[in-house]
């Protein structure tokens, strides 16, 4: 019961947060000087045309009224119509979401693998020069944000050793058999490894740029909790049984050290998703973030609103999942202790 009440309370605060985001975006983008409709029409348009289209998009009404109309629409699943593309915002946004999700998830996997490997190696080779080198690399990885790693990767693997693609999501001339927008998953399911290779060659650098800072965080925290676990009695016991050090670390210490890291990864994952905006721009990757920047440049108000709300919903959903998973995995919380 206690858990159920906590979940309901959590859902309520989530709703309040999303409503707050909606209000702020709504107000902020409507203070923009300059009429977006006037920008959109060809130079010869009369004032009458502008007024008619402004009324069509409801932009001539007071802001609170516009907001109520918009909320009413959203509750019916209608996020309005994009001013530049004249398509429903929801269709546009959902069409791009899979690309961003695939990129973020790939980055997450890379971050966990890289960070995990660094932590395990550092623990196994504790006290050696290798550990010191890993620590230094970790410090640098942690200090420099994804945007700069992206530029470094563009230079190194795009120009110096041009082995990967630095632009786009997939080679445009390829014939794509996909029915969904989840290209990466679908190419796996259809066993089309040629397409998979092409997709990965485009995605690996942006994913790596997003992954490096997170990998450093994972490595740092996992190594710290491994170190703490290694001093516990049961680990010493395993050692006295004559198990090798590698086995002691991976089989005995790791399972217990991993929970705090997992919680943190969940929270940091939202920062990673936020980073896709600029990384997608840098690598001309056709995802949600790239579309968002175009929408801002074109003053496409309904589209901006839709994208920001979707990002906010994504963030809160990730945080909610993390909290619930943590509650489910942690016996002390589950039994209301």
């Amino acid at each position, binding site marked *: 019961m206690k858990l159920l009440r906590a979940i309901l309370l959590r859902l309520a605060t989530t709703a309040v*947060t999303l409503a707050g*985001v909606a209000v702020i975006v709504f107000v902020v983008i409507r203070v923009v*000087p300059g009429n977006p409709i006037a920008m959109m029409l060809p130079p010869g348009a009369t004032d009458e045309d502008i007024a008619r289209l402004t009324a069509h998009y409801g932009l001539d009404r007071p802001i609170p009224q516009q907001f109520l109309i918009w909320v009413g629409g959203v509750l019916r699943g209608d996020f309005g119509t994009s001013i530049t593309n004249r398509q429903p915002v929801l269709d546009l946004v959902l069409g791009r979401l899979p690309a961003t999700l695939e990129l973020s998830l790939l980055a997450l996997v890379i971050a966990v693998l890289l960070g995990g490997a660094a932590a395990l190696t550092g623990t196994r080779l504790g006290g050696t020069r290798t550990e010191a080198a890993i620590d230094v690399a970790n410090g640098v990885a942690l200090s420099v*944000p994804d945007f700069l790693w992206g530029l*470094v990767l563009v*230079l190194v693997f795009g120009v110096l050793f041009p082995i990967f693609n630095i632009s786009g999501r997939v080679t445009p001339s390829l014939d794509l058999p996909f029915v969904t927008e989840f290209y990466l998953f679908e190419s796996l399911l259809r066993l089309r490894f040629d397409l998979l290779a092409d997709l990965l060659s485009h995605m690996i650098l942006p994913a790596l740029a997003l992954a490096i800072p997170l990998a450093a965080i994972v490595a740092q925290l996992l190594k710290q909790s491994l170190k703490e676990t290694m001093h516990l009695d049961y680990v010493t016991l395993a050692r006295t049984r004559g198990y090798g050090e590698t086995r002691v670390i991976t089989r005995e210490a790791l399972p217990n050290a991993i929970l705090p890291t997992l919680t943190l990864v969940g929270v940091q994952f939202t920062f990673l998703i936020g980073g896709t905006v600029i990384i997608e721009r840098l690598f001309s990757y056709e995802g949600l973030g790239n579309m968002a920047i175009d929408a*801002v440049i074109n003053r496409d108000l309904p589209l901006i609103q839709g994208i920001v709300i979707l990002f*906010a919903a994504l963030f809160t959903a990730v945080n909610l999942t993390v909290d619930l998973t943590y509650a489910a995995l942690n016996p002390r919380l589950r039994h209301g202790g």
Partner: protein
Amino acid sequence: MAAELTGDGRGGLRRRAGLRLWLAGGWLALMALVAVFAPWLAPKDPLAQDLFLGRLPPFWQEGAEPGYWLGTDSLGRDVLSRLMHGARIALLVALVAGTLTGLIGSALGLLAGYYRGWTDTVISRAIDIWMAFPPVLFSILLVAVIGPGLTAIIVAIVVIDWTRFARVVRAEAMAQGAMDYVTSARAAGRTRAGTLLAEILPNVLPTIVVLLTLEMGIAVIVEAILKFVNLSVSTDAPTWGGMIAEGRTSIHQAWWVLVFPLVALFLMVLSFSQLGEGLKDRFDPVLR
């Protein structure tokens, strides 16, 4: 000295932290000097174009022109001079935006953490809402709304990043507020505001200084990102972000237009963050 005598390994850790502080601080001091004296140090006018001297390579490569040490961009502007002038803008944004963000965020964090009650409720709820915004997109949006120019960038950074201070300072103020010395100060007749300023603030200050250093590094990056997205530019103004954006487009013809500002940005961000981490170790009573 004592650390070396105890020989528990902390001496080594402290010395490494000290070295890190000196390297990072030294590099930033050098950059500050370059920024201040850029008009006298820069060999060329950073805005002067010469289409006959476009895309000259740096001095060690064939085809380099004397006087253009780090080459020129596609419009024939001197990369070294633009870098030096770009340092001015980067450091200006770091200082102004970082300080303002720190002041506002820390003030709100102190109020929420010490006074609790509805003040805390309002500020904490605002923090929750802020955390649900994608920060890069939010900053791009704000700059689009406010208009071009440095002020817009600084306002965007303050509006978005105050939560970084508010969250941490709130938690610290809350912890300090529960301690005995605060209770006794109140019992000795200090007002609440007096206690906050005279007792709690000095104890939270080290944390604020560390956060401030980290924030300056973030401000430099945000400035570069906004210039890169090209929303707030007069294109000639020599900024590192603008240079990077230009370099990205001509990456296959003239790599040096991208590499040099990237290295400058990389080192500055790394220095701010290492300075922050080094200070954190310094302030940490366990290491001290």
